């Protein structure tokens, strides 16, 4: 029999807006930059975590989305090794890779930046989420050309239905710098995370975790 898993919460951050379970939680008109937006959004949620400001652009995005997805959840009811984190993206950590490269490309001015180097892997974003929450379950960062609801659903169902975890924070966190030679070099960022649990719950969302619902929420 096919096992059914459920979406408890979902959060989307894109286009200077933060949506939690479909409701607008924060928006900002004409931020000076991505950093201006993400830091203002973070501060607006009264989250105390100074390390946020040290994170790279990708980790800031994934971290804030995860904080909001977990905010009203019952995540504390799970053991630390029962919680999985599965995130897909397309541009990996390329944004920080390019910043880091700037610190090493000139042999006459060769000062590798340690605080950039530590973010030159995309799964560091998952590490930040796990460190913050003490998660010790399965975690994976997978690269996909674009948001792929089939791969996402199959991967998460596989983890949950094989007893590797009882719940999973999963989705798509993409940060891509604009490399066009234009004056306004706005990056593209798109973050969508869900909390998926094995059991039905009394949460307001409580939607079946399937391709159709994931597509519907992602496109909302």
């Amino acid at each position, binding site marked *: 029999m096919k096992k059914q898993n459920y979406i408890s919460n979902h959060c989307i951050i894109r286009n200077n807006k933060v949506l939690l379970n479909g409701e607008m939680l924060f928006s900002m008109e004409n931020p000076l930059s991505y950093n201006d937006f993400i*830091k203002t959004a973070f501060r607006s949620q009264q989250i105390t975590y*100074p390390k946020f400001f040290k994170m790279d652009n990708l980790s800031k995005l994934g971290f804030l989305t995860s904080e909001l997805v977990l905010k009203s959840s019952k995540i504390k009811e799970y053991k630390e090794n029962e919680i999985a984190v599965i995130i897909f993206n397309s541009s990996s950590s390329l944004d920080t890779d390019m910043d880091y490269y700037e610190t090493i490309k000139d042999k006459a001015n060769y000062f*590798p930046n340690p605080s950039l180097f530590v973010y030159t892997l995309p799964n560091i974003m998952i590490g930040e989420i796990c460190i913050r929450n003490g998660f010790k379950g399965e975690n994976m960062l997978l690269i996909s050309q674009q948001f792929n609801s089939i791969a996402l659903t199959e991967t998460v169902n596989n983890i949950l239905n094989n007893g590797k975890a009882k719940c999973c924070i999963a989705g798509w966190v993409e940060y891509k710098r604009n490399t066009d030679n234009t004056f306004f070099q706005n990056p593209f960022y798109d973050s969508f995370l869900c909390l998926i649990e094995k059991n039905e719950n009394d949460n307001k969302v409580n939607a079946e975790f399937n391709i159709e619902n994931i597509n519907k929420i992602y496109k909302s």
Partner: protein
Amino acid sequence: MDTLIKELKEEIINELNLEDLTPDDIDADAALFGDGLGLDSIDALSLIVILEKKYGLKIGNPDDGKEIFRSIRSIAEFIKANKK
């Protein structure tokens, strides 16, 4: 020395992304690691890069690092004593 301490505070806030702090929030004699400013091992590496990049200084003996990076003042004293 006061000018150097202020400059170091600004440099550290900027390079280490200590966004919630201003130079006035940092006690020049407070511990940089542990209970003080709460810096971590990556920050320690960044401090080494600051010394090298901005002041042209290298720490010859790694055992000296703990004392040099004890506080902002100890870093300033190291710079003052070694900068040519």
